[in-house]
């Protein structure tokens, strides 16, 4: 084992509760506990000892949404003694198809309070601690240091990197899941927790070891934009709770001392579970893939040798998570004559002042199918870019991008998208392909997209 003479922040991992959990306190179970947990206690490998470890454990669930709701239900049901929940949002109607710990009667309530209401009904025995706030670099250490294990149920890359870094610095195991549209991922990180800087191949990786760079913001889609199937995210949240219970019941969450011999069971390779749910093939096989991941990466920014990440640094804004996750992309900068507001477009059309034109709507076809401006033609942005790329490589004519009936080379083109970003890029792309015919054809962006249309023109428009 590699010698490392640096100070390790074990102080955070040796709270009284952790020691009790390690030893599995030997108290009697109450009658209620005995009844309530009997069916899981008789499962081989759990027993009274495992149950007492759960009762003595403290779990932090960050995010009370599609992952956090199902995860929290099983964490509470299993009898984890102290459950902290962090979320700064309030319950909305569009959450309820998947965020099953909330209720129609609690729309408008903070998600944290709503979920705890639900969990108390399920199991009143645990202590519930609510943090009705977003996790930030400033509050993260104070909150996370109070717990034995962290569950990342959040919805954005910046928070994911922050949580992983804090778990490395505070020596906490991290059960991380994510899900969007039709696929989900689950991975157990930093477990058993090992001090920052120890790298000799057999230590568990952190989030940065697996995903070194965040995806560019333009390629990131949220559940609000791309959609999400309830059972897909639910499956990942439930699996997340399963992993957390396993870790706590077998005391794998205890930070490892440098000198300790590592039991064989701890050395299993970390696994990334991928779930793909194919809406198009209802009778196909279930697609779960378990991928073997590597260990801790020597050069990892957070946990690797020579890492400069510190608690003080994070609190002071170093690294800058927001900046790290929002690398600027080439935003089109169109002149005013190539832009028109949704309201102005509508007014001109109503007065008959608009010449014959093509209106391209670049939203995904599911969005388009819910409603569109009269006469709009759907060319989804992703497909348009692909086609544009192949035309640039010499495959086909640029007019293939346009609907067939509009063959006149000076018919103006208006482009509208969901919120007004893709449409600007589309205008740029069409110009690059020469579709403006040297300025003879006007190509115009509808500012603010269909969101602006709903806001300024038609409040009844079904915008998602």
């Amino acid at each position, binding site marked *: 084992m590699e010698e490392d003479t640096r100070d390790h922040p074990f102080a955070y991992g040796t709270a009284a509760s952790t020691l009790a959990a390690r030893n599995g306190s030997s108290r009697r179970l109450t009658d209620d506990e005995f009844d309530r947990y009997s069916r899981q206690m008789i499962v081989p490998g759990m027993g009274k000892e495992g149950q007492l470890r759960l009762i003595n454990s403290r779990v932090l669930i960050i*995010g009370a*949404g*599609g*992952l*956090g709701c199902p995860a929290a239900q099983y964490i509470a049901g299993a009898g984890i003694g102290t459950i902290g929940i962090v979320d700064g949002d309030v319950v909305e109607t569009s959450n309820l198809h998947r965020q099953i710990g909330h209720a129609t009667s609690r729309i408008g309530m903070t998600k944290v309070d709503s979920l705890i209401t639900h969990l108390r009904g399920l199991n009143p025995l645990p202590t519930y601690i609510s943090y009705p706030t977003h996790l930030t670099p400033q509050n993260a250490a104070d909150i996370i240091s109070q717990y034995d294990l962290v569950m990342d*149920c*959040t*919805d*954005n*890359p910046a928070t*994911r990197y922050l949580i992983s870094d804090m778990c490395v610095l505070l020596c906490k195991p991290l059960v991380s*899941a*994510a*899900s*969007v*549209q039709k*696929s*989900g*991922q689950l991975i157990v990180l930093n477990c058993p927790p090992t001090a920052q800087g120890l790298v000799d191949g057999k230590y568990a990786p952190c989030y940065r070891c*697996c*995903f*070194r*760079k*965040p*995806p*560019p913001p*333009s*390629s*990131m*889609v*949220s*559940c609000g934009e*791309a959609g*999400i199937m309830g059972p897909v*995210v639910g499956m*990942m*949240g439930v699996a997340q709770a399963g992993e957390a219970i396993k870790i706590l019941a077998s005391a794998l969450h205890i930070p490892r001392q440098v000198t300790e011999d590592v039991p064989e069971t701890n050395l299993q390779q970390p696994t*990334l579970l*991928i779930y*793909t749910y*194919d809406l198009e093939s209802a009778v196909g*096989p279930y697609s779960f*893939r*378990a*991928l*073997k*991941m*590597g260990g801790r990466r020597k050069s990892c920014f957070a946990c690797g040798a020579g890492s400069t990440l510190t608690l003080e640094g994070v609190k002071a804004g170093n690294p800058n998570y927001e900046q790290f996750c929002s690398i600027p992309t080439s935003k089109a900068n169109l002149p005013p004559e190539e832009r028109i507001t949704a309201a102005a477009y509508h007014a001109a059309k109503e007065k008959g002042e608009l010449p014959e034109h093509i209106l391209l709507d670049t939203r995904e076809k599911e969005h388009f199918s819910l409603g569109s401006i009269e006469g709009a033609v759907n060319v989804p942005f*992703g*497909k348009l*870019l*692909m086609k544009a*790329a*192949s035309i*640039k*490589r010499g495959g086909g004519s640029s007019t293939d991008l346009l609907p067939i009936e509009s063959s006149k080379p000076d018919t103006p083109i208006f482009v509208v998208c969901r919120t007004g970003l893709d449409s600007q890029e589309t205008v740029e792309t069409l110009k690059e392909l020469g579709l403006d015919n040297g300025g003879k054809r006007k190509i115009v962006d509808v500012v603010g997209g269909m969101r602006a249309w709903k806001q300024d023109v038609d409040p009844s428009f079904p915008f998602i």
Partner: protein
Amino acid sequence: MTPKPPKGHFNILYFASAGSYTSKNVEALPAPLPLRKLFSTLEERYQGIRASVLDHSLVTINLAYADVPDDKAPEDKDEIVIQEGDEVAIIPPVSSG
């Protein structure tokens, strides 16, 4: 199940945004292919995929993580080569929840 790749090919699976970018879940590519040439091979087929998807994705070969070397690195007799019949996967991070 994914169909077996034809002779002289390997299967490549595209997850999450890799699937949206290529409009495919799976395809067969000619084998053998040195792993360090994987990204440039895909960039040729799907212009822009490197910056949008590949640079932040992880890659597995036959269900195990593989470290993709820099494609400008010189040829190395010990380098990983994707073989006929292998299953390669491109796995971008997913963030939502």
